[in-house]
C-alpha cells in the first residue's frame, strides 16, 4: 500500500507529515509573495470584513465595559479625593478663564490678520471607533470600524481628538468595513518629526521597552544650538512622506547626547493616551494631495 493513501474505511486521507510539508511550502510562498506585493489583501480583507468585524463591533463594547468596571473599582477612592481638589480648582480656573478669554479674542483677530488657521481644522476628518486590538503582545496596532466604503485608504493619518489630541498612527490595510491602524508607539513604527519651536528635524520611533513607562524614543535630533529642552512640543515634519505636517506627536522627555557628539536622542511622551483610546479621527487627505 502506498504511504500517501491510507485506507481508513473507504475514505482517502493524507497523512499529517505530508500535509505539514504542503502547508509549510504554501506558507513560505505566501510570505514571500506578501512581502513585496499585497495581492491577497483585497479578497482576504473582504472575507474578514463579513465574518469577523460585525461581531467584534458588538463584543468590543463588552470589552470596554469590563475595563471600565475594573478601572472604576480601582479609582473610586482616588476619584473622591480628586473631586474635592478639582472643585476648588474649578473656581480658580473660572476666574482665570475670563481673563484668558480676553486674550483669546485678541488672538483670533490676530490670526485672521495673519491668515493663520486653527491647528488641524483645514483637514477633512471622519470619526471611527476602535473595535479590536492586536491579538499578540508585541506590536501595538488596532482595527477601526470604518473602511473603504467610508472613503478610507492606506496611509491615511489617524489622530485622536479632544483635549489630549495628537497623532495616533496611520492606516496600513483596509477592508470594506474595517481598517487596520499601526500606532506610532508600535515597535515597528517610525515617524519623521520636527521641533515646533526650533524647527529641528528628528525621528520618533515606537519602542516596546520604553512604552511600559508611557514613553517612546526619539533620535537623530541635530540640535546644534542646544535650544531644545524637556517639555518642548514635537509635531510631524513637512518632509515626512506619509504624515501630514503639523500634527502634534508629543513632548520631549529626557535628552541625551549621542556618542557621536553630533546628534541627540532620548524619550518622548506621546500626546495621546493610548491606553484609554476608544475613538479616533481619520484625516481623509493623503500627504501627496497636500504637497501640490
Amino acid at each position: 500500500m502506498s504511504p500517501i493513501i491510507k485506507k481508513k474505511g473507504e475514505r482517502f486521507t493524507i497523512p499529517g507529515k505530508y500535509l505539514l510539508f504542503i502547508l509549510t511550502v504554501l506558507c513560505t510562498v505566501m510570505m514571500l509573495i506578501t512581502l513585496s506585493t499585497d495581492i491577497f489583501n483585497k479578497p482576504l480583507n473582504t472575507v474578514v470584513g463579513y465574518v469577523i468585524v460585525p461581531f467584534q463591533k458588538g463584543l468590543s463594547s463588552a470589552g470596554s465595559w469590563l475595563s471600565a468596571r475594573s478601572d472604576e473599582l480601582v479609582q473610586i477612592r482616588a476619584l473622591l479625593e480628586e473631586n474635592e481638589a478639582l472643585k476648588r480648582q474649578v473656581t480658580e480656573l473660572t476666574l482665570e478663564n475670563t481673563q484668558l478669554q480676553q486674550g483669546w479674542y485678541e488672538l483670533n483677530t490676530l490670526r485672521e490678520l495673519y491668515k493663520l488657521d486653527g491647528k488641524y481644522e483645514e483637514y477633512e476628518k471622519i470619526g471611527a471607533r476602535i473595535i479590536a486590538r492586536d491579538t499578540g503582545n508585541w506590536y501595538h496596532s488596532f482595527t477601526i470600524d470604518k473602511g473603504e466604503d467610508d472613503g478610507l485608504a492606506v496611509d491615511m493619518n489617524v489622530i485622536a481628538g479632544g483635549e489630549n489630541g495628537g497623532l495616533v498612527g496611520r492606516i496600513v490595510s483596509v477592508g470594506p468595513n474595517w481598517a487596520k491602524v499601526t500606532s506610532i508607539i508600535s515597535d515597528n513604527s517610525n515617524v519623521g518629526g520636527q521641533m515646533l519651536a526650533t524647527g529641528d528635524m528628528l525621528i520618533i520611533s515606537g519602542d516596546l521597552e520604553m512604552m511600559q513607562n508611557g514613553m517612546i524614543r526619539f533620535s537623530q535630533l541635530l540640535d546644534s544650538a542646544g535650544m531644545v529642552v524637556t517639555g518642548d512640543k514635537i509635531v510631524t515634519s513637512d518632509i515626512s512622506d506619509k504624515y501630514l505636517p503639523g500634527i502634534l506627536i508629543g513632548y520631549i522627555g529626557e535628552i541625551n547626547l549621542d556618542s557621536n557628539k553630533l546628534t541627540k536622542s532620548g524619550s518622548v511622551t506621546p500626546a495621546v493616551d493610548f491606553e484609554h483610546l476608544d475613538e479616533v479621527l481619520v484625516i481623509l487627505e493623503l500627504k501627496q494631495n497636500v504637497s501640490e
Partner: protein
Amino acid sequence: MRRKITVGFLIWVCFLLQSTVFQGIAFNGIVPNLLIVLTASFGFMRGEKEGLLIGFFCGLLCDIYFGDVIGFYSLVMMYIGFLNGKFSSGFYPEDIKLPLALIVVSDLSYSMICYICMFLLRGRLDFSYFFLHVILPEAVYTTIVTLLLYPCILFVNVRLENREKRGAQKFV
C-alpha cells in the same frame, strides 16, 4: 462535518474574544493567547493532523488581521499544533498536568519565535527585558486562562467523540 463546524466555531469565538473582550481585561497590557490553548489542546487530544490544521487556520486569521506578511503566524502555529500532536499517545482526559505543561511550553516557544523573528532580527537585543515583561507574563496569564478554557475544550471534544462513536456503530 459536525466536528469541522464545531472547531471552526471555537476558533472564531476564541479569536473574537482575544481581540475584543480580553483586551479590556488585560493586565498591564498583556493579553493571554487563547488560540495557542486551542491549537495545543486539539493537537494532543486529536493528533498531529488536526493540530496542524487548526494551528494553520488560527494563524491565518491572525495573519490577515494583524500580520505584516501572510503566512508567518500560520507557519508557527501549524508547527506548534503538529508537535503537540506527537504527545497524543500520552494523553488521558483525566490528567491536567500534561496538557498544562504542553500549553505553557507551546506559549513560551511561540513567544520566543516571535521575539527572535520580529525583534531580535531588528536589533532589539535586550532579551531579559522582553522575557520578563512580555513573554513570562503572557505565559502566566495563558496558564490561568487554560485552567478555565481547557475543561470547556475537553468537554466539547468528548461530546464530539461520543457522537462520532455512536454514528460509527449505527453503520455496523
